[in-house]
């Protein structure tokens, strides 16, 4: 572990240094919202935003990603045979990612990096990305990260943790990747680790005390899947849902995708796109039969997956980091906090 102090005077020069080795991403205004973007040559991350509208998951898992190319010209060799695309890019550095979004990558990794199969697209992108987190001194009212095994100063999944000290950042590297990044940026003013820890500790306590929003998850594991699945509240929970993809697309832990072929003339690509369990199309059989044809079953799927199936399958907590995006963005106010508490406290009669 290495702790340095980054004087804000050296912030921009360090970032410019990074840009020769990394594609540097950070929050920036895009249209009317703030999103993580690849920063231009003189552009700095806007660290005044709390949580960006969308999560930064697309840096590792783009909404639309090319998997293979092919051609169908039978007069040329190799027709109808898929070829891997060269998706390689510079290593990426994500500046100002929030601890919740970093932890989300750890949860998503359980899906894409398994003992039987490795998803090469996600894994390559993830491995070439360095996450420089910014501790949240002022969490939002919809943040409930302290209930999800995370928190405003959580270090899980981060390579560097930054704490804003006004005219400087304290930067604590947590992995060799993080250490490399600090060196590349020539942020090297050493800082006493023990002092850093005590500053972080008091910052953490202060930030956590500001989080008023909590969910209870302690009873979820002990309840049977079928009991919660058959609970009477799902119709009410789902009533207002309009089946859009806002919750799933903005969520840092939602990973579901679709695979599609696109062709133009004899040239084609196979791509994958984010998909959403809220869409009836997601599970529609060719025959017309749909195992989750009703809205209630789709809404239930989303919450059961996040709060019960995932928990049972991996024993790594719930598939939610408490970033609050779905709570803020749902056009009809479906609130995962309420539903989590209902599931947790549900007692079948």
């Amino acid at each position: 572990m290495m702790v340095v102090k980054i004087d804000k005077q050296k912030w921009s020069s360090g970032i410019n240094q990074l840009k020769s080795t990394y594609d540097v991403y950070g929050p920036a205004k895009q249209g009317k919202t703030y999103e993580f973007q690849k920063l231009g040559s003189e552009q700095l991350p806007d660290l005044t935003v709390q949580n960006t509208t969308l999560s930064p998951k697309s840096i590792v898992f783009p909404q639309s990603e090319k998997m293979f190319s092919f051609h169908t010209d039978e007069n040329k060799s190799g027709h109808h045979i898929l070829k891997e695309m060269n998706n390689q890019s510079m290593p990426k550095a994500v500046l100002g990612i929030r601890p919740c979004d970093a932890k989300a990558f750890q949860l998503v990794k359980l899906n894409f990096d398994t003992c039987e199969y490795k998803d090469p697209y996600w894994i390559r992108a993830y491995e070439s990305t360095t996450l420089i987190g910014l501790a949240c001194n002022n969490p939002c009212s919809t943040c409930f990260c302290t209930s999800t095994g995370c928190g405003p100063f959580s270090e899980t999944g981060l390579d560097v943790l930054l704490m804003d000290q006004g005219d400087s950042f304290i930067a604590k590297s947590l992995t060799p990747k993080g250490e490399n990044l600090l060196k590349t940026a020539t942020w090297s003013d050493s800082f006493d680790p023990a002092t850093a820890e005590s500053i972080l500790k008091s910052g953490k306590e202060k930030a956590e005390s500001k989080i008023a929003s909590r969910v209870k998850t302690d009873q979820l594991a002990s309840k049977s899947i079928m009991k919660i699945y058959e609970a009477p509240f799902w119709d009410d929970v789902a009533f207002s849902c309009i089946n859009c993809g806002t919750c799933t697309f903005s969520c840092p832990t939602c990973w579901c995708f679709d695979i599609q072929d696109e062709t133009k003339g004899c040239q084609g690509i196979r791509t994958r796109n984010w998909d959403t369990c809220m869409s009836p199309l997601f599970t529609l059989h060719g025959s017309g039969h749909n195992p989750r044809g009703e809205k209630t079953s789709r809404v239930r799927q989303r919450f059961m997956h996040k709060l019960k199936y995932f928990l049972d399958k991996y024993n790594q907590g719930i598939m939610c980091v408490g970033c609050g995006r779905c709570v803020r963005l749902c056009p009809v106010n479906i609130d995962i906090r309420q539903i989590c508490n209902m599931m947790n406290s549900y007692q079948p009669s």
Partner: protein
Amino acid sequence: MQNPYLPYPVRIDNVTIATEDKSLKTFKFIFLDPNDEKKFAYKAGQFAELSVPGKGEIPIGIASSPTEKGFVMFTVFKVGLVTAYLHNMKAGDIMGIRGPLGNSYPWDLLQGKNIVIIGGGFAFTTLRSSIVYMLDPANRPKFKDIHVIYGARSPGMLLYKDELAEWERRDDINIHMTVDRTDDPNWKYNVGFVPTITEKKAPSASPDTYAIICGPPVMIKFTQPVLEKLGYDHDHIIMSLENRMKCGIGMCGRCNIGKELVCKDGPVFTLSELNRTPREY
């Protein structure tokens, strides 16, 4: 890193019409690279993604048996975009196969047991694979009695008719073919729905007897109580599910029933396992 989404290139060796209404065709594929055939080592009950560049992929149960070498075989029902396109493809065309995917029928468990195979309609593909596998001279001694109850709407809708006739002549397997109805005077087998024939022909339950069921939902719905009546424990009833799939390797998120992924944890489950999961299939 090996890319699990990359199909093995194959050539269509042969296409045959499998049913009288032409809604099913059987495709034999040959791997362009013979080494790929070795990598594609499968067990009866597994499936693969048939990959048609430009159209997409579809998960289909493997109809050939691991004991059949030099090709892999699939029988495909024409239902959606990819299958409709596939039905127009011909011998010599190049496409891809990705797999083998999913678990298989539990062959270790089934060794030394009586097996009752119950199939309906065009869900007989992996059952054909299983029968051919069990009847292989090297494997037949590993199993006790084998019963097969197989029904279709009409005689012309039965898959693999030549093989059925051949098995019918053997004495180491009991074939009970049935059709919903027929006016064919030469039909010498059963007439009636699969559940009814199961009740009449299936051996009674024992700790050493396992039933494998594949068929349309309505057949499964009515066969299950019959097997219960015959005394079959739910962990002696083995079923294979179908759900919409894309990745086939447990990542894309759509085929789950509860926490189980049909593509990776299945498609084969015992009824007692299914009792513990939501019926989202």
